[in-house]
């Protein structure tokens, strides 16, 4: 981790595991010892397919899911398990989340005013009504909505506008880290660009840090600085975005990259998707460990595989 030591680490996962109890007393380990650190001001992508555990990690960071093993650190302080009231309040404010489906994530029976201000009722009890309303108006303006929308209900808005309301609800808390869980995948193509541009502008203006959770590598490539790839609960690779695209190491990452559809018929017709076959790893003699193969480029691999990467890209 020497390369990132100089920069401020905002959030760190250390060997985080998350279990779910299933019917019949069985346990499902959704996240298996995930470790990574998110630097202040960056956009960190977490990419995987459905069931990979990417959303579970996002939800653990905002403490909806509990950690079963390992820990999550916020500015060096542990926020998993029991924490004191003061840290709890800080984390509630400073880590916010934007959800995938703007149709499902807004309370249908509340007005926009309440939806956007809901978080404030918990952490800013000092605010008077006028001050609270002023904050709601400011948040709405920041996401490109009109202040008079505050008195309307969610069903009066389009998908793109609802996602803006979801973003305003996060912004009003003055967060430092925003967990964006597939924030554009439910939106129409022309609206996606608007929301992506909004997220970039807000990041620049407010110095926000994003954890961007998505399955679509082509979108993730456009907006992230670094990417972690997760497969069935294991983080299998982590690198700077362009490095990951230039030198994908893990077989699963290669499969995922080969599957991205490209809006270019000539390229797309020639594309050959590579299927990922977990049995191609020979871990009979030595199991894989998390290792740095190139500076800042980590992969889950054993000694023999790492030597192979060195030969291939050396």
């Amino acid at each position, binding site marked *: 981790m020497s390369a990132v030591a100089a920069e401020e680490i905002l959030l760190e996962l250390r060997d985080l595991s998350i279990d779910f109890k299933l019917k019949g007393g069985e346990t499902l380990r959704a996240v298996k010892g995930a470790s990574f650190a998110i630097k202040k001001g960056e956009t960190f992508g977490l990419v995987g397919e459905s069931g990979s555990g990417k959303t579970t990690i996002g939800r653990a960071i905002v403490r909806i899911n509990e950690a079963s093993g390992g820990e999550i650190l916020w500015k060096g302080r542990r926020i998993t398990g029991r924490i004191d009231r003061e840290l709890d309040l800080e984390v509630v404010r400073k880590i916010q989340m934007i959800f995938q489906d703007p149709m499902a994530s807004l309370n249908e029976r509340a007005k926009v005013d309440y939806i956007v201000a809901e978080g404030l009722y918990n952490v800013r009890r000092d605010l008077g009504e006028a001050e609270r309303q002023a904050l709601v108006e400011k948040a709405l303006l920041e996401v490109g909505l009109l202040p008079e929308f505050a008195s309307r209900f969610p069903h009066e808005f389009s998908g793109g506008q609802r996602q803006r309301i979801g973003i305003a609800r996060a912004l009003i808390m003055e967060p430092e880290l925003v967990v964006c869980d597939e924030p554009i995948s439910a939106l129409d193509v022309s609206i996606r660009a*608007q929301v992506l541009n909004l997220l970039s502008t807000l990041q620049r203006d407010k110095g926000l840090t994003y954890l961007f959770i998505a399955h679509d590598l082509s979108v993730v490539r456009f907006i992230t600085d670094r990417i972690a790839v997760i497969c069935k609960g294991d983080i299998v690779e982590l690198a700077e975005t362009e490095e990951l695209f230039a030198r994908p190491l893990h077989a699963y990452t290669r499969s995922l990259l080969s599957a991205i*559809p490209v809006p270019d018929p000539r390229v797309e017709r020639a594309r050959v998707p590579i299927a990922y076959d977990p049995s191609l790893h020979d871990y009979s003699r030595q199991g894989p460990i998390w290792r740095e193969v190139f500076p800042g480029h980590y992969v889950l691999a054993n000694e023999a595989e790492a030597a192979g990467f060195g030969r291939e890209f050396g």
Partner: protein
Amino acid sequence: MGNETNILEVRDLVIRFSLRGRNLTAIRGASLSLAEGETLAIVGESGSGKSVLVKSFIGMLDQNGRVDAGSILFEGAELAGRKTEEDWLPIRGRKISMVFQDPMTSLNPLLKVGRQIEEVLELHRGLSGKAASLAAVEMLDRVGIIDPQRRAGQYPHEFSGGMRQRVVIAMAVACQPRILICDEPTTALDVTIQAQILGLIKALQRDFAFTTIYITHDLGVVANVADRVAVMYAGKIVETGTAEEVFYDPRHPYTWALLSSLPQLGVKGHPLYSISGTPPNLFREIKGDAFAPRNPKALKIDFEREPPMFEVSPTHRAATWLLDPRAPRLQPPEAIRALRAKYLEAEA
């Protein structure tokens, strides 16, 4: 065009829905022709009318919807006036079948998968008993379901999303349709599964020799599958051409906007080209080019008169006044010029 090899000809189709006493014009005069054996992708955003358009080919418009004008000729037979279930029986599911985005819309959760395919075979191909169940297992095998004999005895919930979509495809293809309509067939699936499903549909198209219509908003999927592309906006087809023509030489400002708003074609660190505003209200009469209010470079005439379809090449047409000889010469956005340059370089 009157071309004999066209399996489907749609002419000036108008479809309206009555909603709370008001009329919504979902399709505002769409024309389309489909050549036998080709793959056509209809691209558009939600509300553009792409799903409504294809649903009218199989008589699946909602109760309050109706074809108000125009014609749909399928192998020479008129589909536009058909109303009753009986009218549609020889067509729907038999000659033209459809695969939906969510496989559970087409599957009965209470019926074994094999049985659901048998029903199709009994209804449309007159098979029964042992012959039907054998043919059902064969279809499951054909769409890549491993151990089809055993899987035929299972219920839909025992299948993963990708496997369910394979079952739905087996049902749709079992009656050997002439046209297969795929409505966002891979949107709900993971990218690795998506690639497999697209590959499967292509292989089946080769073996069963049907014609395919894709409906999608995913231009990556379009680039993968389409021979020809039709771009829809606000109930109209605004541009149509071969995949190469639409991707590398698009002419309609909406096609420009759609392509250049894609993150895949964007330049990192720069804002994406974005389309402001929202699509027009289809309850109201639309004057001029429906896209004009969202087009920052719209001409004066775009707000006044509706552009006709201008011919760019024998296969490529677009409804924009920019193609009128009197119009100013406008450059397409940067992302599109870059895409075209890359293509020309590779061709050279």
